[in-house]
């Protein structure tokens, strides 16, 4: 997953939905819970915002694998590829 636009959009979506202050850096390596301190309610809000922003469906059973922002980016990219196929 090397789409810089996707990563930029994803970071902005995570920041807004997770209410992350501007001064906190977000990158592919950033962990949603450990690094950004996103609580369990906001985690759902972030994933729903990602669904809405990228017009895709996140399966509940996939949630345990979505720990880092990079995991989310790869997930979004794979869903887009699957949809395009």
């Amino acid at each position, binding site marked *: 997953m090397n789409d810089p636009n996707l990563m930029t959009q994803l970071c902005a979506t995570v920041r807004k939905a997770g*209410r992350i202050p501007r001064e906190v850096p977000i990158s592919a390596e950033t962990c949603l819970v450990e690094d950004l301190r996103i609580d369990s309610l*906001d985690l*759902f*809000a972030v994933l*729903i915002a990602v*669904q809405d922003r990228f017009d895709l469906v*996140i399966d*509940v059973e996939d949630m345990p694998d979505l720990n880092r922002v990079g995991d989310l980016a790869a997930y979004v990219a794979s869903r887009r590829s699957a949809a395009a196929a």
Partner: protein
Amino acid sequence: MTDRIVVVGHGAVTCLGRDMAATWEGLIAGRSGIGRHASLPADSYLVDLAGMVKDFGPGSSTEDPAVSRLGARSIHMAMASSREAWADAGLDRLAGRFDPDRVAVAIGSAFGGMDLYEAEQIKSSKRKSLSASPYLVPGLLINQMAGQVAQHLGVFGPSVAPANACASGGHAIAMGGMFLRSGEADFAVCGGAESAFTPMIVNGFATMKALVGRRPEDRSAADPGQASRPFSVDRAGFVMAEGAGMVVLARESTARELGLPVQAILAGWALNSDGYHMAMPDGSKIAKCLATALERSGARPERVDYYNAHGTSTPVNDRVETRAVKDVFGDHAHKLAISSIKGALGHGLGAASAIEAAVCVRALREQVIPPTINHRPDPELDLDYVPDHARPSDLETVMSASFGFGGTNNALILTRGDR
């Protein structure tokens, strides 16, 4: 002498302004806050006339960060008006001098977070598995307004959320009075908040024929500000509005002890039920409610200087209410100044009666009666509706009454606070 219940603070958010000062200024100037709104498009809404609060709520430049996760506009309105009333009372500067466990919160609403619910429902149809925001349920609950106000003012007494349709706010103020009278609280933050602009609710009111519709011959076609015209011969329904009104009540001894200026006395109240119809009012029960409030306040009918009417601008309400006022006040009805501020503000549903109570507190302080704007006399309604222009007046005792679908009524009696 019993310890009187007094008003020590008040606040409002309305379509005339985001605080009480702007609201009062607009009311006294005879301005309307009603307009046509692009956010109510014809492909979804049967009516686009509304009283909306500009630049307010979730996502706006004036968003309250304390409640940013909760997307229901009514919660933001409850917060803003409560913060204003709390500061108006001076209680924001008196932490440590009163017991926060003895501050009650009572905030009513007809529809609560239905705006959030319908918006989420539209999105959820596309989302499949992760379909609902985790903030939907907290934002939808009617008692979340009281909960957020308690949380952010840092008060921990009883909190309640009366859901009594268009009488909710007045019921909440009466309940605040009950908490004080029973000794369960020293202060009560109480009122109502509402924002219910969803296709289902707007269209539901429209199909009941309760709203002013899109008719080219209606006055509102040329001037939306004339859509709401209580007690007028050509009144044709109400105009939905959003907003909030709040008062802070205290026992007089507590207020005096803390040096809080007394803005008005809550001299009495009454609540009752029509037991009659799902939506049509029963004038005899309304009259009974008004008479009971008078009796409990100890005021004789002829001592009431101003009656702040429910005055929705529907053909039925204004006729029934006028008759009830005549039944209760007798000859004095023709000397009594009556006005409905819904001409300017539209109908704030569960917030309306609390906004009206807060305006009555301001009227007592300023000794001015806000007018019924857009008034054209109806030969059948022959009382003094204070048409179009604010009226300086010697106000000692005022009554504010509200009635809701389901046949639920309240009447509040307020008197001057400096006596």
